[in-house]
């Protein structure tokens, strides 16, 4: 008898700092998709420029260690189908998940004070689709 375990896949948004031109269109469309308005504080992806040409991106990487889930004192975070999901009823807005995330992939929504985390736009990946330089690409990792 053999057991076949379906290999679970998780999405990873890869960033090419050479291609990124710091237009931040990904931030705009991320905010727009989720909230119908624009704002850097409500974008789940953040692009930062340091010096003349160093570019970095910050977004949930769906990392192995799930620092955020471990850090949450109220068990409001869980990992479901490749996304970190927030149970807003359980969340007490303490911000521990934000402190714990080494990728700076979580923000507190400035009004609801609940964590906002990349959810792939329900598989639509608005940031990837809208990037004019193809600096963001989707890869599927196991796990």
């Amino acid at each position, binding site marked *: 008898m053999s057991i076949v375990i379906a290999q679970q896949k998780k999405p990873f948004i890869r960033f090419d700092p*050479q*291609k990124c*031109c*710091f*237009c*931040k*269109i990904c931030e*705009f*469309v991320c*905010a*727009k998709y989720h*909230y*119908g*308005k*624009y*704002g*850097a*504080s*409500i974008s789940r992806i*953040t692009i*930062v*420029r*340091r*010096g*003349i*040409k160093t570019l970095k991106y910050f977004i949930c990487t769906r990392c192995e260690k799930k620092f955020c889930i471990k850090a949450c004192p109220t068990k409001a975070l869980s990992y479901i189908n490749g996304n970190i999901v927030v149970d807003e009823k359980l969340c007490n807005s303490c911000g521990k998940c934000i402190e714990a995330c080494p990728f700076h992939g979580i923000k507190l929504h*400035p009004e609801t004070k609940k964590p906002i985390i990349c959810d792939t736009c329900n598989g639509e990946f608005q940031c990837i689709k809208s990037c*004019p*330089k193809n600096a963001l690409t989707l890869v599927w990792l196991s796990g």
Partner: protein
Amino acid sequence: MKYFGYKGKILMINLTTKKTSILEITDEFARKYLGGNGFSARLLFDMIDPRIDAFDPTNVISIMTGPFQGIYIPTSGKYHVASKSPLTNGFFDSISGGHMGAQIKYAGYDGILITGRAEKPIYIFIDDDKIEFRSAERLWGRLTSETQEMIKEEIGDPTISVSAIGPAGENLVRYACIITEYRAAGRGGLGAVMGSKRLKAIAVRGSGTNEVADPEGLENWLKWYNEESKKVPGISSILPTYGTPSLVSSINNIFGAMGTRNHQTEYFEGWEGICGETLKKKYWDKDMACPACPIACSKIFSVKEGKWKGAISEGPDYETLYSFGSMCGISDGGAIIKADSLCDEYGMDTVSCGVTISFLMECYEKGLIDKNFTGGIELKFGNDDAVIDLIEKTAKRIGIGDLIAEGSLRAARIIGKGSERFAIQVKGLEIPGHSARALRGMALGYAVASRGGSHHDPRPTGEYAGASDRKAVEGKAAWVIGTMQFTTIGDSMIICHFLERLLGFTLNPKYVEMINIVTGFNYKFEELVEVAERILDLERAFNVRTGIRRKDDTLPRRFLEEPIPEGPSKGMYTDEQTLNKMLDDFYTLKGWDKRTGIPTKEKLIKIGLEDVAKELEKL
């Protein structure tokens, strides 16, 4: 507010008293002045005593957004700065790329008005509704990039936006600029006004949002943009690939219109060293963009070998390849990358700096000034070492740099000996790389523009493209008015003028559609034209109060008397009689008095500026 794209608030800051207050923006005001350029034109007309020196503490710096900041519409990643200019003494505004506009909006303001003078160097940190005055003593003397980095470190947040001046602004170089990231509110010396207020920088962090009136309309508009922009090579391939340096080969070779060696000619034989293809091949590292811009015309260039190895800059753009390249007779792209980087870091306008050095080079070669005057510098065209040396000296006002820091008009007045005829400026502002002799519209446009020698009042693009015959005199005034109406509305919305290739070179209903989607004004085209005229005439009224009249609406004598000596535009120029004819046409169409160049009472009343008419009657 019932309209979208606005916060209804302008933050007012007095640096002398360190007091802040809020100026409410009404629906009516927003509809009447739109934003950016329009808000500044109205507010500065009301706030600034036109007789003051630009460095007087009561001068006001207006940092504005339009309804388009902080939303996603291509090219809206900009902000606007205005003040009374130390270079022209008139109303002056400059648009810069950078996330600052969005941050101001997200912090809850449509703009910031700054007056007074701090006792000691400071910077302002605006964190939503919390405003802090912080010491900038350890930042004073620092370059613009390190200033921004140090402020981000101090605040502990790399996502904030910082707009800073460099040593040039501190030393009141009359064309010092304000740098955000590596983009500049470049022209007219707005950075020197900041320096005169001992204001090193403004840092802003906004946690708020912005939204549009008609999201569905915007979706459709973006679809239209994505399709239509593909058909416009400038936007879809040339600017993304080469940036504005792509203009060098066409303007120089096809039009013969690239001012060379202080406009002694307009064909640069050394163009190959500084053209778009060469820059891309030899120096290109990567593309950069202003926020919300898919075009990404900005390029990081670095020098890999040779004399200027190690130099790196965001840019140079076309105007810098003109001012430090063809104008100074320099065909080594590496030297210009170095010059561009130094100007950004010291915080100086590359156009005015390069053109002023070019002017002095002609004075030197003609024997009007000698080595005693230059401090031992062999100031000949093509001497790139001298140019690089002089940039730092200018920013620090050392030796002859102290004179260069005054700009070409003031330098000419000091040198005398008839040099003013070839000081390449209008109203004190150095003319950029779009020929007043090869493009008839630019001859008239530079002469009448509020800012003087600016290619963002009238636009050259439509004449290059053949949308208006570049040699024609008939009909040119109407064309120029149309381009100025477009630029002033573009600067009020605020979007980049490069969209003109897609939306049209003169104001037209496509702009109305965009504004209505964002704001919900439901403007008709006629109302938008009136808004444009209101803003333009307010700028003129500001300048009229500083003494500007028809006699000032002119060009350097060289352009009125010396035809282009060679190349594709050989023989072209606009003589005084032709300029006067175009001026008559222009004033007539504008409703300005033909004799004085002052907007008539009837015109001002027609565009809802009765109070301005009354002010002008007092003169």
